[in-house]
């Protein structure tokens, strides 16, 4: 029984280390004797709370608006560039401070960063996402927020995005990376 489990864990590890999908950091970073604390499910509610705050910010900044995205891509307004630019600036300073002072999580674990390796998907996939972004006026985060604001038809856009993700997974080996 235990041997079987170890084998499965090994397979999981092999899959994850071959994983070129760099956004899923915790998937890449998993290792055999991971120190990840085991928490009951309701610990995840803090991420829901963070999501609620983020959703409110997205709405109040109007970044979930199809119109604001059109303005951005037509260079008719500074708003979106200001939002993204200042967000990245604050993010860079925060990450630098965390690294510099070796700040730990609230559970006193060291904070991990994983480097992203370049692959051609960053370009091809990036362009394809850009095409979709200009049409729907939404990246994945705003899709969820838009549904929350009452635009229920965006459920269809979200389902279609899930299908797109699935189709990518299906053809992944055949696509240039």
């Amino acid at each position: 029984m235990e041997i079987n489990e170890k084998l499965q864990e090994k397979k999981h590890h092999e899959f994850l280390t071959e994983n070129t999908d760099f956004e899923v950091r915790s998937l890449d970073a998993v290792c055999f004797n991971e120190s990840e604390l085991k928490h009951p499910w309701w610990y995840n509610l803090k991420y829901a709370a963070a999501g609620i705050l983020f959703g409110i910010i997205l709405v109040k900044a109007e970044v979930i608006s199809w119109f604001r995205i059109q303005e951005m891509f037509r260079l008719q307004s500074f708003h979106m560039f200001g939002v993204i630019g200042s967000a990245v600036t604050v993010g860079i300073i925060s990450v630098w401070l965390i690294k510099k002072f070796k700040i730990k999580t609230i559970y006193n674990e060291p904070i991990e960063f994983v480097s992203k390796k370049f692959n051609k998907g960053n370009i091809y996939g990036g362009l394809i996402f850009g095409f979709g972004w200009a049409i729907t006026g939404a990246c994945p985060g705003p899709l969820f927020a838009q549904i929350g604001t009452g635009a229920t038809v965006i459920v269809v856009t979200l389902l279609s995005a899930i299908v797109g993700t699935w189709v990518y997974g299906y053809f992944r080996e055949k696509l240039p990376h």
Partner: protein
Amino acid sequence: MLEFLKQPWPWYVAGPLIGLMVPALLLIGNKSFGISSSLRHICAACLPANISFFKYNWKKEVWNLFFVLGILIGGFVAIQLLSTGDPIQVNSKLQTELASYGITNYNAFVPEDLFTWPSLLSVRGFVMTVAGGFLVGFGTRYAGGCTSGHAIMGLSNLQWPSLVATISFMTGGFIVANIVLPFILKL
């Protein structure tokens, strides 16, 4: 205070708050800010279909699903409690251009002249809702992240592949918004 919160927030308030999501998620549980991976976890949970890309223990990433559910609730809270209900103010050039395609309703963030249930039956509505969504899901996963994972988290950690991805997002968007979208809007 509430009156102030109900106004649209300027970029120099909203942008830094979005940037603070990066350290917030790192501090409360060592999580990298990123949203499009939630779509992958949904595939892994609902229809892995023996595809190696979806065969992993998605339950370890369930925090991400809580996070996106929170975003949905946040959207509801903001529109119900923190909104003036005024129409969105856009550049007059854009207004003129959109009027020529019959888009004149600025009451909602998601234009009601484009994205409604009945509009799904029109060619324009179907292309924008269904094909657009497909491109977002396919493209973000192919790129390994979206605006949050690459443009914000990746750039915050000074990852140059994320800069390449961000430039690609913008290039793709510029091309479609200026060259292709006018044809779609005429449908």
